[in-house]
């Protein structure tokens, strides 16, 4: 297999109505002399839901930095208005939990067509760090879930401290991690504040369990053991902070009940249920590690979030998570440190500037240099495999919807559908074998079981043979009721090349990886094309597409 810049696993082609307003690049540094198509594809698979030929041309014209700057200016494409619009068509008494399917539909529409691709891709990463899931009580809160996702999208390029506050006060998070309705202690009844949000905000969203060096490595004590960032007393301290909050606009804490309106508004504090004693916070150099008694709920919350936000772990913690979601599972410590420094100070003295962090992640030499290492890049997660294939082949349906009713059942992953707050996969997951043995991780392998890999392979088979604009003769009829929403791909360009097997294989490679395939994959795909009669053009395309799109090198993000 060739390990060169030209060999890039990506998706491309079939660019779809992305507006391309070419503004003059306000760059501090000029774009690199030349960006190859393969370079552009690799970049776009880190920064969007899948490279397309049109977007690659944009990148080549603008350069990476100007392309990013342009993306940073694009307003957020939002989900909630769509969900509200669909709900307006519901008859009284209809099952509104079905709105989650419309939420997934609009998520897929944005992934495929929204102009704010970078913002959407970062929001997707954030949705897997600060996790809520409809697989919970939130099944009854489709508006809240859409609103939460929109909040992530709107904060994707903002300040991390504001993101923390918006996440904390969002009622969907409040329901999911039970800060909503958290009450002050009632000693007579052995009632103490709920520790759920207190624990997970620190463990999973911001600082993690153990102290980190700036480069993301774990600090150890004199005995060589990791140093915990907090203990049970501190969890309890924060649990007391997060008391008194529930739905906004109620006459009292006890009287607050969920409505369509208040699940999309920040929670409100009701002082009658707020614990007013002193509270222990995180300790670190320069920290104010105690909250004094007698403050308001809002004052306590501000102090607590400041205390977490300024913990030295947050920079390396968030740097590592975002790099893993966007670029590579195993960044070098130096890469993590460069991004953590950017988090700590964006160059203008500001901490937590996410736009600067995202830009630094994507412009870093480790992200931009063509990979030569066997540990570079990462495995694509199921949803990104899907959106990249769909974008490369301009997937669409007659109805205009992407109505995949049970997307987790289809491919093992869906937006805001994680099994728990620990997401679909852990950042520390190491499959047994060479990855674990070398001390590496491959988080996405946790959702690459035998079962899920065969599901995906079968989906590719169905897409290649039957769900195309030119199904192979013999494909079973789609029931009429399902026809309008059936998502099909456009392989008509390839069909015209069916008489020339090598050209056909190369055309698919160009769309899916932006360059040549490994020689084995190319040879095998070509031989299957040749096995099909030349007159069977649809079959020839399907054979090649199936073998290529399901291959390991296409599951790899370079």
């Amino acid at each position, binding site marked *: 297999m060739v*390990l060169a810049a030209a060999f890039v696993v990506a998706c491309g082609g079939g660019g779809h109505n992305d507006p391309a307003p070419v503004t003059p690049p306000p760059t501090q540094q000029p774009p690199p002399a030349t960006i190859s198509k393969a370079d552009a594809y690799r970049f776009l698979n880190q920064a969007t839901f899948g490279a397309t030929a049109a977007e690659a041309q944009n990148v080549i014209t603008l350069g990476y930095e100007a392309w990013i700057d342009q993306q940073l200016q694009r307003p957020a494409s939002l989900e909630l208005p769509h969900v509200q619009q669909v709900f307006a068509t519901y008859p009284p008494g209809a099952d509104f939990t079905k709105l989650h399917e419309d939420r997934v539909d609009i998520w897929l529409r944005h992934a495929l067509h929204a102009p704010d691709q970078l913002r959407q891709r970062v929001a997707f990463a954030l949705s897997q760090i600060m996790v809520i899931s409809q697989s919970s*009580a939130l099944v009854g809160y489709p508006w809240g879930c859409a609103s939460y996702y929109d909040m992530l999208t709107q904060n994707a390029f903002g300040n991390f401290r504001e993101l923390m506050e918006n996440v904390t006060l969002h009622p969907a998070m409040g329901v999911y*991690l*039970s800060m909503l*309705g958290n*009450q002050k202690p009632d000693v007579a*009844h*052995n*009632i*103490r504040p*709920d*520790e759920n949000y207190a624990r997970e905000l620190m463990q999973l969203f911001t600082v993690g*369990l153990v102290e980190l060096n700036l480069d993301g490595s774990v600090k150890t004590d004199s005995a060589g*053991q990791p140093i*915990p960032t907090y203990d049970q007393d501190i969890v309890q301290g924060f649990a007391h902070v997060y008391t008194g909050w529930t739905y906004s606009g109620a006459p009292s804490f006890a009287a607050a009940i969920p409505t369509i309106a208040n699940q999309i508004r920040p929670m409100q504090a009701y002082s009658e249920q707020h614990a007013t004693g002193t509270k222990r916070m995180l300790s670190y150099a320069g920290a104010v590690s105690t909250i004094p008694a007698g403050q308001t709920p809002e004052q306590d919350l501000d102090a607590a979030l400041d205390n977490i936000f300024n913990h030295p772990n947050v920079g390396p913690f968030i740097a590592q998570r975002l790099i893993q979601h966007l670029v590579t599972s195993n960044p070098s410590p130096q890469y993590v440190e460069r991004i953590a420094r950017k988090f700590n100070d964006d160059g203008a003295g500001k901490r937590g500037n996410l736009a600067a962090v995202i830009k630094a992640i994507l412009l870093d030499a480790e992200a931009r240099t063509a990979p030569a290492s*066997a*540990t*570079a890049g990462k495995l694509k997660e199921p949803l990104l495999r899907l959106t990249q294939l769909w974008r490369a082949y301009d997937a669409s349906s007659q109805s205009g919807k992407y109505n995949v009713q049970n997307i987790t059942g*289809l491919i093992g992953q869906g937006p805001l559908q994680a*099994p*728990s707050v620990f997401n679909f996969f852990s950042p520390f997951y*190491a*499959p*047994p074998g060479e990855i674990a043995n*070398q001390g590496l991780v*491959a988080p996405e*392998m946790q959702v*690459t079981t*035998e*079962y899920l*890999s*065969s*599901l995906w*392979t*079968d*989906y590719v*088979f*169905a897409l290649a*043979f*039957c769900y195309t604009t030119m199904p192979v003769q*013999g*494909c*079973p009829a789609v*029931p009429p009721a*399902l026809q309008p929403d*059936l*998502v099909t791909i456009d392989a008509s360009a390839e069909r015209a090349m069916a008489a020339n097997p090598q050209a056909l294989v190369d055309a698919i490679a160009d769309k899916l990886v932006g360059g040549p395939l*490994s020689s*084995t994959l190319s040879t*095998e795909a070509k031989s*299957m094309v040749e*096995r*099909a009669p030349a007159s069977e053009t649809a079959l020839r395309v399907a*054979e090649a597409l*199936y*073998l290529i799109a399901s*291959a*390991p*090198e296409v599951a*790899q993000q370079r």
Partner: protein
Amino acid sequence: MDNFNRRRFLKCAAAGGLAYAFGRTPQAVSAATISSSAAFADYKALVCVFLFGGNDSFNMVVPRSAAEYGVYAASRQNLAIAQASLLPINSLVPDPNGALYGLHPSMSELATLFEQDEKCAIVANLGPLIEPTTKAQYQAKATHLPPQLFSHNDQQDQWHALKGEATLKSGWGGRIADALLAPGAATPLTQSLAVNLSLSGQTLFQAGVTSVPYTMGATGPVPFFGLEGADAYTLARRAAFERILSANHATVYERAYATVQQRALQGAARINDALASVRSPNAVPFATAFPTTPLGQQLKTVAELIATRDQLEVSRQIFFVAIGGFDTHDAQTQDQPQLLGNLSSCLAAFYRATVELGIAAGVTTFTQSDFGRTLTSNGDGTDHAWGGNQLVIGGAVAGRTLYGRYPLLQIDGPDDVGGGRMIPTTSSDQYAATLARWFGVADSALTSVAPHLGNFTAANLGFLQT
């Protein structure tokens, strides 16, 4: 054209779960590739039922005698189960202090299994420990403790891997398979199908140092639509697909992905063929009806797989099934009856099915969960704690008995490290070793399964007859 039978392979083509389903072609290339033989003369299965989130098991097994219930009720306040509603159980080994226990009122099937069948045992207040630990030692930090107590993933990993302070990448289910498959094992196991089978995703529990688990869905593996026909055309496609997988790949991620696809391809048809043989209407191996819940479906598939043990030529299997929802920070009183009721009916159905299969004495089902929960309340729910009660069911279980010491459920009492978090009085290592020993792991190899076993007095808790 003979070398490509388009119509036939397309019969199993489409859908892929999108909208409309398909069967696969009946004549599949399958078991032919792998031969299998097993050295054990008997068949045994361990079935791990993992309750994700942390089961509030002090509401599952509750003291009902007056004095002990009084302590319980005073601690649990508005989360206490009413004394009169508890389903009485009577251990064959009486409590030295006369304490009596009952099950949560939603668990009638389990109460029957305990009281009448005597095939259910309770192991009290289990949890990860590195060494026996008292409250004084805990408070003085004078003992080694599993790191990150009360954190979900860390304590799941403790249960899965028994890793203590080490950074183990293997689980004890995987290490049992390693021990049995080791060339030097007393009774070396040579079956070709994976010992560890998961119906609920990847789990550290089943990762071996050398052995590799196989993961399927709740109803079994998914067939490869495009690759399982026996006609020359499909065989050519499959051969091409396999050569692509076995090529030299550029990255560790591609190699890992290819390896999983290879395993899937090898296992899917073989297991599906076996399952098909017990799913045709005239070949159904048991009449027991399973609850139509995710756990019920998983356990039904496990029972069907066990029914095909001869066809699959296996003598030792470890199954992993799981359900979530036990992280009851909220609405515990509303949710717990459903959670525990489902558990009870599923476990009982599974046991009944193994009786019908004539294999009950060879199948042991056991529960695990992240941790127990606080005896104190956060208003309408509970938070993360430590020790908890677990269930063991099967024909080989010395049942109708409560094993281990049930703790004193008193806030700030001798077993509480704060907020009603019980220090485990029996370790997960002891539990695992007892199960492993029954399964066939030699005594000399038990510490490879349960690394801290030597720190505890009893290596065998006695709940399994051998």
